[in-house]
């Protein structure tokens, strides 16, 4: 018995175990350190350099900066240049209308997921997630085939006798919008489904039992409870579409200039890094402004979640 007792003696943890325990305790920022290091090297530092270029006049010689002086001139030039205004407005319009359309088309799908049987749910999930498994570029090129002058859509419409000559959809705002909505729809639907299926299905039954019609239940129960999903989905879709590059480039042809394509041209073709830097800054700040607005709106409509300590 005495020997057994010795074996069960409480032993202090070794040094390695102590370190691991400290790292995984959830206290402090230690678990996030690897991510912070990587992001600092690949994102924060380059972005800081780019910003410094945006706020200075510099001279280069043989690929190296030889003199640099602080200046607001690039920012003031950008803010007074109508081209910037038009471009950012176009980006904003595209992003806001894509977000609105994704919500318009995505919400009914999420509602169907909520009310449907197990097979409906499965089908919706497969159809929502499957497109995410193919590259956005592939999906965008698919639209070329459909929307092109001799594409699937035009051939069908011509053959049905609905139009006399092919519609010009490719390389217009409409082609970009159609592509954007299709590509970003899953990003809207998934948060909506996640939030809507979190709530007790008895709430819907209770609402009907208390005399609400289907519309009444949707308006007074399902919609208010899905606001966090609407907020998340909108924020994601807006961020992705406002800064999008591939779709406008392919479906808009060379002549569809939005914020991201403008920055690309400034940095890659005209090598005006200061302009690119200032454009990036404007893009980021305006994007954050919209995100803050979405967050404030979401908070306003979900006040009930914050009253726990009252």
């Amino acid at each position: 018995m005495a020997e057994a007792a010795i074996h069960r003696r409480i032993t202090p943890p070794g040094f390695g175990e102590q370190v691991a325990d400290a790292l995984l305790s959830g206290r402090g920022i230690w678990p996030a350190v690897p991510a912070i290091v990587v992001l600092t090297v690949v994102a924060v530092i380059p972005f800081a350099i780019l910003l410094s270029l945006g706020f200075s006049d510099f001279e280069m010689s043989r690929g190296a900066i030889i003199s640099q002086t602080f200046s607001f001139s690039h920012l003031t030039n950008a803010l007074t240049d109508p081209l910037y205004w038009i471009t950012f407005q176009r980006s904003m319009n595209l992003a806001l209308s894509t977000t609105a359309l994704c919500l318009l088309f995505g919400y009914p799908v999420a509602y169907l997921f909520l009310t449907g049987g197990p097979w409906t749910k499965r089908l919706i999930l497969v159809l929502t997630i499957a497109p995410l498994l193919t590259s956005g570029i592939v999906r965008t090129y698919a639209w070329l085939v459909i929307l092109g002058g001799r594409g699937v859509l035009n051939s069908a419409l011509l053959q049905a006798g609905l139009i006399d000559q092919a519609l010009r959809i490719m390389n217009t705002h409409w082609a970009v919008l159609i592509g954007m909505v299709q590509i970003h729809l899953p990003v809207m639907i998934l948060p909506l489904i996640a939030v809507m299926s979190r709530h007790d299905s008895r709430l819907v039954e209770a609402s009907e039992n208390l005399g609400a019609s289907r519309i009444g239940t949707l308006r007074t129960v399902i919609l208010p409870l899905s606001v966090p999903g609407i907020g998340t989905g909108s924020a994601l879709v807006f961020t992705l579409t406002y800064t999008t590059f591939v779709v406008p480039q392919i479906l808009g042809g060379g002549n569809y200039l939005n914020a991201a394509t403008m920055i690309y041209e400034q940095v890659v073709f005209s090598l005006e890094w200061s302009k690119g830097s200032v454009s990036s800054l404007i893009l980021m700040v305006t994007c954050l402004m919209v995100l803050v607005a979405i967050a404030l709106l979401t908070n306003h409509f979900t006040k009930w979640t914050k009253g726990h300590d009252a």
Partner: protein
Amino acid sequence: MMHGPAGPSNTVETTAPVLGIGAVGKRFGATRVLQDFTLDVAEGEIVTLLGPSGCGKTTLLRCVAGFWEADGGTIEIDGQDIVDVPVNRRPVGVVFQSYALFPHLTVARNVGYALRMRNKPRAEVAQRVASVLETVSLTGFENRYPSQLSGGQQQRVAIARVLVMEPRVLLLDEPFNALDAKLRGAMQVELRQLIKRLGLTSIFVTHDQEEALTMSDRIAVMSGGKIEQVASPDEIFDRPATAYVADFIGVSNFLETEVETGHVRLPDGQTVMTDLTGGVKVMTRPHNLRLGPPEAGPWKGTVSFHRNVGPLIEYHVEASDGNVIRVSAMRQERDCPVKDRSQVSLSVIDPASCSVYPG
């Protein structure tokens, strides 16, 4: 008193029933969840559907509420068939197991929901909400959200939310499940008194026999989608119609024996009259048995376990045939201190209170 296997005995009501359920069936795939279910509920009566999970009690409730469609049969309220009436037009109020309060609405807006859905004028809504909140003693909680309320308060909101629309029939789906044991007991008494005061015709679903005995005017004990017995709580407890009911409600001892010309002989020598023949089971409750010194009678056994259950002492006595018999006695009646392993004799206090079932 003797008891044959009485079938479901539906009391004939003198006045027309408020809720009439006739031959309702429901199947899910190959499983028959409800079979030929028939039950009438009178004005102001509380009928409890009691049974283990999967016995069909919740299914019936959902069919009456209209969440599910019955496969056949009739469901009538005040003589009018409601089978084809959509959920939101049935004069039925449901109190859900988890209350299903709207988390994004305050107490007042939860309670006023049914009235707003009926487009009642704002002043009327405010006045009726205030009055019903007073009924359930929640005045002053109007602007709280459900998450800011205790379990008992949430339950009262759930009841108020249904009461405000003055339903003809109240359906309660295990409304005490989410409460802790002590609060549960108090809320049972409170809710029964409230329903009785308002004279609401109610169906109450539970798997908890104590709850059923507390809440009900009548209890319908269910098994496999059918009613085994409908009767008052006393009748169900004292004279269970079938061995299943006897086994489900309270603690019961079953003794297997043979009928000898119109009566059965108990192991202690006393007799119980019966109409049955052949092999039977005699059921006696633990409180109908008495322990005595080993020389006092022919039915002998050994105490294998005992425990104090509040005011009662419960004994497990292993009889000579290997049966474990459960005996209970009031604590102050403990005339001879009985220890585990001690030899005792058993006797039935009142043979007439035993029930006899086919074996």
